[in-house]
């Protein structure tokens, strides 16, 4: 059986899983019923949903490969929040509908911005190379 996450990472997994479920459900509805209204925003929301799923599963497993996958997913997520967050403020017309990453996740109490930062910090802190 695969090694499971321990300590605070278990809490992080739950938060990512909640975002994965919420973002995926919302994205499926958006893509299937009103994609034409805001293709860029809804497309980005779908990408965010996939990232949350990957991050949740990768963080839940604690082996070396999963940690690499988690690091890649969280880095992508952080870049996404910063780029999309900035673009949504500078080029607001391109985002007629909000994505989970719009305005740096302000619609979700900035949790989308905080999550990858906390996750990357935890991955670094709990790295076997750190002896923890």
């Amino acid at each position, binding site marked *: 059986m695969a090694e499971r996450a321990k*300590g*605070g990472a*278990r*809490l992080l*997994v*739950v*938060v990512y*899983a*909640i975002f994965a*479920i*919420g973002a995926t*459900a*919302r994205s*499926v*509805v958006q893509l*299937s*019923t009103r994609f034409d209204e805001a293709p860029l925003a809804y497309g980005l929301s779908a990408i965010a949903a996939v990232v949350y799923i990957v991050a949740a599963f990768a963080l839940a497993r604690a082996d070396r490969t999963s940690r690499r996958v988690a690091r890649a997913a969280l880095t992508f997520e952080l870049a996404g929040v910063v780029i999309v967050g900035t673009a949504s403020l500078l080029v607001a017309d391109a985002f007629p509908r909000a994505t989970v990453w719009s305005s740096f996740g302000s619609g979700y109490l900035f949790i989308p911005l905080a999550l990858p930062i906390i996750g990357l910090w935890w991955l670094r802190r709990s790295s076997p190379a750190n002896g923890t």
Partner: protein
Amino acid sequence: MTGLFANFTIIASLAMAAWALVHVIVNRPMSRALHSSQLVLAGLFLVLAAGGIVQLIGKQPQIPWAEFLGYLLLSPLIPIGSWWWTRGDNTRIGSAIIVVIGLVMPILVVRIQQVWAIGG
């Protein structure tokens, strides 16, 4: 979907969160009752989902039904998933997870009510 039962699910969720928070603060191992309360909460959300579907069929064809159904059907899965994830966890992290679940579920109920309200 603004009935008393929806409000009851909110109160039950917050009560579970408060109970778990006490465990976190006093650093007590998660009790079996606290762990099982997640399944009780899942049961409440199953009832909420059933009631919501009945109301959807009966009255409100103009609401975004796919989104409404999605929220209703996925909501019981969250406490069931956390029950599975926290089984055998005797640390305060297990209780902290239940705090998070207890705070998230009311947000979900409010969201379900918002989607329902679109139908007028």
